[in-house]
């Protein structure tokens, strides 16, 4: 897969996250690829994991059956993008 496609996917993901989670005031530029999504970093929580699972499924066609698996996949935009590429 080309670097361009990876970049596009990551940028797309950032836009989706901001819109899906109603992150007012957040821009795509302000989210680094490897910024931690939970706790420090973007400050998401366990409810957000559930929303992101739905996002993965509806927008990228990738299902995560168990929310507990979610924490690893959703570490950062980079890990999310990797998971999508591996499973789509």
């Amino acid at each position, binding site marked *: 897969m080309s670097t361009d496609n990876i970049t596009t996917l990551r940028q797309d993901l950032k836009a989706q996250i901001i819109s899906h989670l109603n992150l007012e005031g957040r821009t795509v530029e302000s989210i680094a690829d490897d910024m931690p999504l939970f706790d420090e970093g973007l400050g998401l*929580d*366990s*409810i957000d994991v*559930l929303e992101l699972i739905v996002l993965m499924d509806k927008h990228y066609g990738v299902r995560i059956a168990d*929310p507990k698996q979610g924490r690893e996949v959703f570490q950062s935009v980079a890990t999310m993008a990797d998971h999508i590429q591996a499973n789509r």
Partner: protein
Amino acid sequence: MRGGGSALQPIAPADGPPAVVGMIPEELIAPGPDRLYRLVDRVLGNVLDELSQPALNERWGCYIATTKGDIEALGSADPDRVRLPYLADHIQRKAGFAKRPWIISNACASGTSAIAVAGAAIARGHIDHAILLGVDLLSRFVLRGFQALHAVSEAPCTPFDAARDGTSLGEACAAVVLTNDPHILPNKLGTFLSGSIAHDANHISGPSRTGEGLVRAIHGACNKAQITASDIHAINAHGTGTDYNDGMESIAFERCELSAVPMSGYKGWFGHTLGAAGVLETILALEALNNGWVLRNEGLVNVGVPGKVNALLKDERASGDLLLKTSSGFGGCNAAILLQAWKA
């Protein structure tokens, strides 16, 4: 409950009516926009008949515990009915209360919180008697929300079980009368001793892992009644069947030195009835004690919680009459009340 098993049934497919669980008469629970009011009116009517239709003057309080009230009216032709005060107004007019009813909405701790408040109001002399009613109905609104949180079990919920995977939703309307004059009550359930409410301050939908709020609520109720853990003969827990709630409760019970006390949650029989739960479960737990029993956790096979608890797998003969009832809800709200069975 002594002789039978769980009344929980799988819910009908997405667009069908909710399954009838067999404890509420068909004519009350049949689908229709006035479903909530049929149920409330019947329960209220029963209570007033039992009391021989007293004049509900300023010395009578009315406390309504509910989380969503008539939520199915949202999006209907009559959305005004969704406002909880609409239900309070209906009840006030129907029963003839002089005082405006209280509506207490503390999530799933509403019922137990309301008992704590009504008991305190009588103890303080604000009122002499109170009719307290808890109600919540099954709704697609709530079911879909709980499903979105991955909080609904595949089969009837099994509180405190190692294999528990979520709760089952139920619906109920339950009412009690509290009074400082036992002569007005034809049937006595028990005595309210004390109540307390405390917050987890952790997460709006996830309880404190260490049970901060519940521990404080239990201690608060015990201190108020001047009793210690060793005085308690039975615990009726919240026990939803979710991983987090039951885990948190077990830790709170252990921290409060209640590990040896016979403990059960009733949701395995009829599910999580939200605002009605605290009232319904208190009534049934006291009734069990009055008959000399502490009932089992229906559906429990293997206890699997981090805190040390005496979660009953079988009904047990009660060793006394003191009951601790606890409830916990979203927003990190926890309520604990202490009651003494009437004829144990």
